[in-house]
């Protein structure tokens, strides 16, 4: 399924939920957050939150800043 991750076309190759995307992208256990179509998805919901074709996801992590 084709989706967008941080505005980049991405193929979700396994499963159809946020947890499977996190696994595919090898996201760390801590320090990241994911939103689907500008709605934040708590980590506790990753395994049950479906991703649909064409969804736009934002994944953030820590950065240096004041």
């Amino acid at each position, binding site marked *: 399924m084709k989706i967008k991750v941080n505005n980049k076309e991405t193929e979700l190759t396994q499963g159809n939920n946020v947890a499977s995307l996190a696994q595919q992208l090898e996201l760390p256990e801590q320090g990241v957050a994911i939103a689907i179509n500008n709605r934040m998805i708590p980590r506790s919901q990753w395994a049950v939150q479906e991703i649909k074709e064409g969804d736009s996801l934002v994944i953030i*992590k820590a950065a240096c800043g004041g």
Partner: protein
Amino acid sequence: MEKLIIAGREFDSRLFLGTGKFNSNQQMEEAILASGTEMVTVAMKRIELDDKEDDMLRHIVHPHIQLLPNTSGVRTAEEAVFAAQMAREAFGTNWLKLEIHPDPRYLLPDSTETLKATEELVKLGFVVLPYCQADPTLCKRLEEAGAATVMPLAAPIGTNKGLQTRDFLRIIIEQSNVPVVVDAGIGAPSHAAEAMEMGAAACLVNTAIAVAGNPVEMAIAFKEAVIAGRRAYEAGLGIQADNLVASASSPLTSFLNE
């Protein structure tokens, strides 16, 4: 020295550190530890899918340090609420440095959106520390909205120009019932000491330490300046004369001629 208390948490250090502009994460961590700070800001960015860079988070997570995620990059209250929710999820804290500055040239905070976002974020259970204009009226409004502190600017971010808003900071400190953290523009330890002597609860410093010739030594200098300034405030400064007429500090009896 009195402890600083914000939202029920006690802080021994009244120096907060930003994490931008250091040459390396290692240097940043050394400066943080040398400064004695217990509050460190962290920003957010979008991951790159093939990104294998050093994770800065592991350099700032220490048991004595409260992480303070910021909302840098947002332009409206609505975006700030979204960023806050992402930060809470990513970093496991409901503490937030709210900063909304849509103008990239001066990075001055948008007061209307900052107040609106503070109201919404407090309702959502965030501990909100808003970066704001040195506007006494706005700071009272932020306090009434439930802000845990107010963080008025001394000068535009990264300018190192010191307490350009000095007189307004004095009014804010006089009127505030929440801790006043002077944020942005502090460029030298003497600036931080002056803010603390005025009664500021804390100072937030980033650029002045990060771009110093020796950031670790500068972090120590700021630590000492903040302690000195606070100690002086608590000791009670002498009154400054409004003219240059001297007032002798030694007896003026003429022991040589009589």
